[in-house]
C-alpha cells in the first residue's frame, strides 16, 4: 500500500498515542483509556512496550537519591502489617517504649468508666469480682469492651466498632507485668466475641492485667507471638 488508508492512519496514530503514554504527556483520563486498551489489545500493548524499551535510556537522566530510612519501614508496615517478625523478638515488642506509651494513652481512654449499670449484669461471685476492660486504640480502628467472669472462666469481648479487613483475625493477648504476652485466643469474626479462657490462665487475669488485641492473619498468629499491629489495649480493673 502506498497511499495512506484510514487503517494506516490509525496504525500511525496508535504508535503516537503509545509514545505519548510512555512520555507521560497525556491527561489522567487519557492514561486510563490507554491502560484499558492495553489489557485487551495485544498489538497496542506491544507498541507501548516497545516505546518503553526504546525510551528507557532517558532514565539515565534521573540522579539517584537515597530515601529516608522511614520510607522502607512504612512500606513494610503497609505490606506486612507489622515490623518484620524475625528481627523483633517477642519480648522486644511488648517491652517497646512506643507500646507502653501507647498503653498510657489507652489507659487514659479507658478511664471513661462504663458505669455502675454494667456491674449489675453480673452477680459478683464469691470467688472473685467480675472484671471489665475497655480496649481502645489510638486512631480507634476498633474499640472493644472485655468482661471477664472468674467463676465461669468466660471472657466476653464486644467489638464496639470493628472495621478491619475481613481476611484478618483479631487475637486477644494477656500481659501480666513484664511477662511475655499469652495468647487468649482469636475473636469471632463478627458480632460479640466470647472466648473461653483455659483454666490454667484464669488465675492470671486480675486487676492490673493488660489485655491487648492485635491484627493477625486469618486464624491467629502463626508464631504464637503477636505479629500484627496492636490495635487496642487496656488494663483490667475491678467492676
Amino acid at each position: 500500500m502506498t497511499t495512506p488508508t484510514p487503517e494506516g492512519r490509525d496504525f500511525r496514530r496508535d504508535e503516537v498515542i503509545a509514545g505519548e503514554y510512555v512520555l507521560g504527556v497525556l491527561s489522567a483520563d487519557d492514561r486510563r483509556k490507554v491502560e484499558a486498551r492495553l489489557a485487551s489489545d495485544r498489538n497496542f500493548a506491544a507498541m507501548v512496550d516497545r516505546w518503553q524499551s526504546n525510551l528507557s535510556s532517558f532514565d539515565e537522566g534521573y540522579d539517584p537519591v537515597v530515601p529516608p530510612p522511614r520510607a522502607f519501614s512504612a512500606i513494610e508496615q503497609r505490606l506486612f502489617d507489622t515490623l518484620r517478625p524475625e528481627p523483633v523478638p517477642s519480648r522486644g515488642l511488648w517491652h517497646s517504649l512506643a507500646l507502653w506509651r501507647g498503653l498510657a494513652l489507652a489507659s487514659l481512654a479507658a478511664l471513661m468508666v462504663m458505669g455502675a449499670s454494667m456491674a449489675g449484669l453480673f452477680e459478683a461471685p464469691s470467688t472473685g469480682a467480675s472484671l471489665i476492660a475497655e480496649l481502645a486504640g489510638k486512631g480507634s480502628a476498633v474499640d472493644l469492651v472485655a468482661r471477664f467472669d472468674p467463676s465461669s472462666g468466660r471472657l466476653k469481648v464486644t467489638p464496639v466498632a470493628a472495621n478491619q479487613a475481613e481476611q484478618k483475625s483479631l487475637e486477644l493477648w494477656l500481659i501480666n507485668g513484664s511477662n511475655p504476652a499469652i495468647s487468649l485466643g482469636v475473636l469471632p469474626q463478627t458480632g460479640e466475641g466470647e472466648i473461653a479462657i483455659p483454666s490454667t490462665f484464669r488465675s492470671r487475669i486480675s486487676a492490673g492485667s493488660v489485655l491487648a488485641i492485635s491484627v493477625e492473619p486469618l486464624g491467629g498468629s502463626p508464631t504464637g507471638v503477636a505479629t500484627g499491629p496492636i490495635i487496642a489495649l487496656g488494663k483490667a480493673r475491678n467492676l
Partner: protein
Amino acid sequence: MDEDIAGLLGRVSLGDRDAFAELYRQTSPKLFGICLRILANRGEAEEALQEIYVKIWQRAGRFVQGQAAASSWLAAIARNQAIDIIRARKPAANVIDEAYDLADPAADPEKSAVVRAEGRRIDACMEELEKDRADAVRRAYVEGLSYQELADVFAVPLNTMRTWLRRSLLKLRECMER
C-alpha cells in the same frame, strides 16, 4: 546488575521478604530520584515511593525476564506512579479522542508491532530531530511535563507543541526501524 535485580524480582514474586529488602536497597535511590524529579516535592515523593514498592511487591510475578530490562521495568512503574500523581494534581487536557495532525507518511510503516532487535539506539535517532524538538521529547519523559507545560517552557502555542512531539515520535519510530 540487571541480572541481580531480575533474580531478586523472581524471589520477590515468591514472597521472599529478604529479597524484597535487598531489591529496595539496590533500586530505591533511582526510583526515589525519579519521584523527586517529576513531583519536585519530598513528601509526595516519599508517598509515591511507598505506592511504587507496594506495586512492585504485588506485580513482581508479571516481570518477564528477557522481555524488558529489570531496571527499566522498575523505572516504568515509578514514572507511571509519579505521572499519575502529578496529572491528578495539575490536570491536563484530554486529547486522544481528538484528531491527530500527523504528516502523511511517504509509505505506510510496517503494520506489525512485533518487538524486534532495534537497529539503532534512540540516541542516534534523537540526533536526527531538530534540537528543540529532541529537547522537548527528553524533557517530557524525564520531567513528566504535560503538553501545556512544554508549550510554556518552549514558548510555542499548545498545538504547535503537540505537532512537534507527535511528528517527533513518528520520526523516531521510523528511524528505529530503519
